[in-house]
């Protein structure tokens, strides 16, 4: 339990000291996570909306599939990306393994199904309300999707935050494809795993606290943005 107290002190110290190494790790964590969440949203939101709006045979199968893929094990994703990008793999020539790009790819693969499945559900609920009006107006798919995404934007922020949470906390995949290489691909979570395996639980916890504080900052920012926009829309 003394570890616990020590962790708080240490976390404060780390934050106050703005340790150069910590700054580097935090920076990379945020870069990788934001990039992955951005890619996931860019792909997942339209796909989720499309899945919510369209009716075709096999749609139900896709819905179940993406729900299932929310449970993609990170280690498996890590392995798959590793095998693709490895020198022996088909995309080895890109030389992406053990770079932040590889980590972004792995995280995007993990997060995209979450964005698809959750936004599908959200948009489906909204579309229950809009669909007849849209069919009456003969709104083409792309416009309908854009309109639904826009009108559900306040709810979709929570979906994106769920994706962010998954990505920022992820360690299993990024450690395999990033390699947790010091100064190159070390991020908060892999650093935490490392300190844990070293038995330095206080430092590991302190890093965890720092990570949570950063995530809190992101969430507060998102919330402020959301409520400002909502206030403007409903003043």
């Amino acid at each position: 339990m003394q570890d616990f107290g020590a962790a708080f002190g240490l976390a404060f110290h780390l934050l106050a000291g703005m340790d150069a190494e910590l700054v580097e790790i935090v920076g990379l964590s945020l870069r990788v996570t934001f990039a992955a969440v951005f890619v996931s949203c860019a792909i997942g939101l339209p796909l989720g909306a499309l899945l919510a709006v369209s009716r075709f045979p096999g749609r139900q199968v896709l819905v179940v599939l993406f729900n299932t893929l929310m449970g993609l094990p990170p280690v498996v994703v890590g392995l798959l990306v590793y095998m693709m990008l490895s020198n022996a793999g088909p995309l080895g020539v890109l030389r992406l393994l053990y770079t932040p790009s590889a980590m972004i790819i792995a995280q995007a693969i993990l997060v995209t199904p979450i964005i698809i499945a959750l936004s599908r559900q959200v948009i489906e609920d909204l579309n229950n309300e809009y669909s007849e009006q849209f069919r009456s107006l003969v709104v083409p798919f792309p416009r309908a999707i854009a309109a639904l995404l826009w009108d559900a934007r306040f709810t979709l922020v929570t979906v994106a935050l769920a994706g962010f949470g998954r990505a920022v906390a992820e360690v299993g995949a990024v450690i395999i494809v990033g390699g947790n290489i010091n100064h190159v691909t070390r991020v908060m979570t892999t650093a935490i795993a490392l300190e844990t395996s070293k038995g330095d639980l206080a430092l590991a916890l302190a890093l965890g606290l720092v990570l949570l504080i950063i995530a809190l900052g992101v969430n507060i920012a998102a919330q402020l943005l959301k409520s400002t926009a909502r206030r403007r829309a409903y003043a």
Partner: protein
Amino acid sequence: MLEASALRAANHRVEEAPAPLPAAERNPLVVRGLVFETPRQRIIDGVDLELPDNRLTVLMGPNGAGKSVLLRLLHGLLTPSAGTILWNGKPPDGRTRRSQAMVFQAPVLLRRSVLSNLRFALGLRGLGCSRREMLSLLGMLGLEPLADRPARLLSGGEQQRLCLARALALRPEVLLLDEPCANLDPASVLMIEEALMKARAAGTKIILVTHDLFQARRVAERIVFLHRGRIAEISPAESFFDTAGSPEARSYMEGRILV
């Protein structure tokens, strides 16, 4: 009356093979043996209907008669369980819907400003949409001062007027209106009726659902009376109110309970 009784006859012939009526080709709207059912109930129960000209048709009938469902079927939003609907010889699809506009019984508005709701619909038809033009469209229904308000925070009547403004702005060939004046104040009702008469004069075909006998009397040229999913009567407006042929319609107007 002849027309109406002919159609009622047709309605009763539904179980037999519907004979192709000769007028089918030339009529803007021909409905034959239309049935719509859910596992639980038959909502539209064999409707034959022809609206051969551009008169303003009022669709009446008690609550739950199937008026809203019939409008949806005509608009192509529901697929008939049996029977056919032909608009100028073709079943309703996206293309016919693009030349029509429907106002639903409960207003459906985007979570945006009044103006954006209008802009969205106009944009779909590639219709010009400068702010000034849109304001004047809104102005026609007294909505101009509300242009920048969030549409979903409007009062009930204001929402209904916005839905109507949106439908009218699309300059459709056919207007399907499901109780569009239910929540409107008398001035707005008159304003809407005027707008409808103008559209009608410009050649728009209008099917209007209403429970307001006075409104029906003011605007209808033809009355279709629906009862439990079947057409009980089709009459020219003049004769309907004075000498409605069907007991159902008479009971309705006298406010007697119909089951």
